[in-house]
């Protein structure tokens, strides 16, 4: 039960974060805003990680370090900046469903580059998601 509560908490936190982003970005450049938010994120997660997994941090291999850094560049330098820019230009209610479509792109990338297979659930999901995105981006 606690695991389910935590999963919903994660979803709530990301939704609330988008609202705070909308409120915070009104008089500040997107890249500067993304940097401020990243600083608070890294402080919180960094301290928690040092407290809970200090040995794992110390013994992290250079290969793992580089892979995680690559993930960070793609997810945060590109992803969070684009995320903030989209919220600035079209608002949180239209931008959030676009970000939520990330699993569709992950599936397409995995299909193209990693040969991942497609099943009925994925096909139906795509057929539901795409019209949903169309409704969101064309809403007045």
């Amino acid at each position, binding site marked *: 039960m606690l695991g389910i509560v935590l999963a919903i908490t994660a979803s709530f936190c990301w*939704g609330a974060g988008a609202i*705070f982003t909308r409120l915070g970005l009104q008089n500040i450049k997107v890249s500067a805003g993304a940097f401020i938010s990243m600083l608070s994120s890294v402080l919180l997660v960094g301290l928690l990680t040092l407290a809970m997994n200090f040995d794992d941090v110390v013994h992290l291999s250079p290969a793992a370090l580089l892979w995680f850094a690559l993930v960070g560049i793609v997810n945060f330098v590109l992803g969070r900046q684009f995320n903030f820019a989209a919220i600035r230009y079209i608002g949180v209610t239209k931008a959030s469903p676009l970000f939520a479509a990330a699993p569709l792109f992950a599936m397409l990338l995995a299909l193209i580059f990693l040969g991942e297979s497609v099943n009925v659930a994925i096909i139906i999901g795509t057929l539901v998601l795409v019209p949903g995105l169309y409704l969101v981006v064309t809403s007045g």
Partner: protein
Amino acid sequence: MNTRRDVIIGRAFGIGAALAYGGSSVLVRYGVAGLAPPLVGAAVALLAGTLGLAVVGARHLDCTSLTQNTKPTVFLVLAGVMAALGIVASFFALDMVPVVIVSPLQSTSPLFALLGAYLFLGHLEKITLRLVVGSFLVVFGVILITLGRAI
């Protein structure tokens, strides 16, 4: 009021963000799985992201205006804290229940954003029936796709 140009740029950035998130999840799934505990990976990725954004964004920081008007800074710090809490809660959730339960629940964040916008951003955001129906369809579609990939 958004101009047509703003809307096109905003949509492009939104799709760009989804591509970046999708791409990084593929990297995580096939590149870094098992290399270190997820929280350690998240911390390193966040640190690399912060350093990258320091290069791109720090030069745009106007400290004088930030200290004169602290409200936007406080909101952005809260946005970062919420994002971090989401990451941490997500990792602990995955430790306790299977991914087929966690992923669909996590996919509902646009609905929380929609509710938050309705409650707190009435002066900034217009919520229409079309937007609400579209958001629910997106969430439902994402749940099916994540379940389909997890089984």
